[in-house]
């Protein structure tokens, strides 16, 4: 850590991990509700638990991205952050807004919450992932703009590298595309069409820039490979991500009332979407193989390699599995989608944020790397979480295939709930895998509290 102001990243990362734990707990509640339907009813109905689960994911990843930006941009720009005070103020505003929103979901009926928060003035609520009340949405925009001002000023007056420019472009894109969440036409088809301009253009667009910049930053630091090489890779990967991903939006337009040519455009371009993810895997491994130094932080290297592999599996392979229109006709809106969503979010975004945390946290706590014991525990948590997420994905995939067969393909199609009963076994196994994931996460958190002499490079 070269600059004092980079320390503002610390509270962002701590909040991220705290909310991550909350997300997993609500995930387990939902997982149980899949098989014990009346669990916690009517206190926490499934839709509330899901809203909390997905919104916490989004909020904690945003905390992670912001923390990462506040850490890497000053270092890349070679100057202090424009205003650390503003960054801290935004942290508290964002945390307060996030917590208040979650409490609102849990304590107030959703319709009442909508009424209180001015949803009748501008109806934006009640659409998947964009359930936040109007004030929260406005808050997200304010926090994002303040952050962008802060970071842009830092970069403008400092050194401009590929990494901080890409990070900045990604964050600007994130803020700009979020504005589509305020557009909610009465026409359901148009509503859904532009809803994807937030959701798809985030996760398969600008977030990939953020992810690429974060991964490139950590790889430069832990491998010592020449910046020119890494930045060239970064540009090529994100270029491919946008080239395939922008028109790849079409794979969401097959069955929502949009013209049918999207089946062709979406299939062709999203068939190519695994390429940037595959390049990312190759990138991570070849950089680590060509390393010029042994970094004492082995755990961070493991997370960096892991995100390369798991992003490819989750986003690339599991995405491709059901992206072609003739396949998607049967898989659309089934547990296959859930399987893909879990592995892709974990492999791409969760793991890259943890990579960043794993690399920066020891530095912000005044050492190059954690003690060997703390790192061993952290690496155990890596394997527990990663393997259990793989199993969650496999069980959901099995459930999905069976569900599709029973409900959509067989000669005597079953009703939705009848098919759900048939696949209950896989839901139980998913829940057990989820418990393993939780234990991995708890182990991960505990690794921060393990003392001992810092590891050295050898």
């Amino acid at each position, binding site marked *: 850590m070269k600059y004092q102001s980079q320390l503002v990243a610390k509270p962002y990362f701590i909040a991220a991990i705290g909310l991550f734990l909350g997300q997993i707990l609500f995930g387990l509640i939902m997982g149980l509700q899949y098989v014990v339907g009346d669990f916690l009813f009517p206190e926490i109905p499934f839709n509330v638990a899901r809203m909390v689960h997905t919104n916490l994911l989004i909020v904690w990843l945003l905390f992670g991205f912001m923390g990462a930006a506040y850490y890497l941009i000053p270092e890349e720009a070679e100057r202090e952050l424009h205003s650390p005070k503003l960054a801290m103020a935004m942290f508290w505003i964002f945390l307060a807004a996030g917590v208040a929103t979650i409490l609102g979901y849990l304590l107030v009926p959703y319709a009442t919450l909508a009424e209180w928060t001015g949803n009748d003035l501008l109806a934006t609520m009640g659409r998947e992932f964009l359930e936040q009340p109007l004030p929260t949405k406005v808050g997200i925009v304010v926090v994002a703009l303040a952050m962008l001002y802060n970071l842009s000023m830092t970069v403008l007056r400092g050194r401009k590298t590929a990494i901080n420019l890409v990070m900045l472009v990604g964050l600007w894109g994130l803020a700009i595309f979020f504005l589509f969440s305020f557009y909610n036409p009465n026409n359901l088809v148009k509503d859904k069409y532009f809803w994807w301009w937030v959701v798809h253009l985030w996760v398969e667009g600008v977030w990939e820039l953020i992810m690429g910049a974060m991964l490139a930053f950590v790889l430069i630091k832990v491998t010592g490979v020449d910046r020119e090489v890494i930045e060239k890779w970064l540009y090529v990967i994100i270029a491919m991500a946008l080239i395939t991903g922008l028109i790849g939006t079409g794979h969401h337009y097959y069955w929502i009332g949009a013209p049918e040519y999207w089946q062709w455009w979406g299939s062709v371009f999203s068939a*190519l979407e695994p390429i940037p993810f595959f390049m990312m895997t190759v990138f991570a491994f070849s950089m680590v193989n060509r390393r010029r130094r042994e970094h004492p932080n082995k755990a961070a290297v493991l997370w960096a390699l892991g995100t390369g592999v798991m992003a490819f599996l989750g986003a690339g392979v599991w995405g491709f599995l059901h992206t072609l229109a003739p396949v998607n006709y049967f898989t659309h809106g089934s547990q296959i989608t859930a399987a893909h969503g879990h592995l892709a979010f974990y492999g791409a975004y969760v793991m890259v944020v943890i990579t960043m945390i794993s690399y920066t946290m020891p530095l912000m706590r005044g050492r190059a790397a954690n003690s060997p014991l703390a790192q061993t525990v952290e690496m155990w948590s890596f394997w527990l979480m990663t393997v259990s997420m793989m199993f969650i994905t496999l069980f959901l995939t099995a459930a999905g295939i069976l569900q599709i067969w029973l409900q959509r393909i067989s000669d005597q199609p079953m009703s939705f709930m009848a098919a759900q009963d048939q696949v209950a076994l896989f839901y139980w196994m998913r829940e057990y895998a989820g418990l393993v994931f939780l234990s991995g996460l708890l182990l991960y958190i505990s690794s921060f509290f393990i003392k001992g002499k810092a590891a050295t490079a050898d």
Partner: protein
Amino acid sequence: MWCFILAELLVFGVFFLAYAFARTHDVELFNASQLELDRTSGFINTMLLISGSYFVVLAVDRIRHGHSRACTRWLIAAMACGAAFLVLKLVEFSGKIEAGISMSTNTFYMFYLGLGFFHFMHVVLGMVILGAVTLKAWRGGYRASDYAGVETGAAYWHMVDLVWIVLFPLIYLLN
């Protein structure tokens, strides 16, 4: 640059495969719709692009011998071919649109208009790249020992040409 050109070819390749696949499912529709196309215009366009490619080769050859001026002239000639291609293509497209044909008319027209427009945008991009190269060549920015930029621009232009040479028989002629 090569990996990018390969990626572009891959995209078009996948589209061509998709076309072939779709065609086998409805050969009659494809054949019937194909007859409504203006083959003359397509043929002239093919000639234009091939000539453009040839001029670009000449431009590279000239700069290799250090002749900036001649290189610039050939590049402009290539761009003129590109511009003529774009005009003809626009006439063709507007004729179809006036006839009420769109990408949603049928699968054949989805490919004809979609792929055609996609390629059209590539020609525009190729023109932009050649334009930038021409400007630099005109200012004497390349010499016999350093003409990588001209080669890169030429490579991209050849790629655009190559795609058309596959696209034209596939969509206009193959019956």
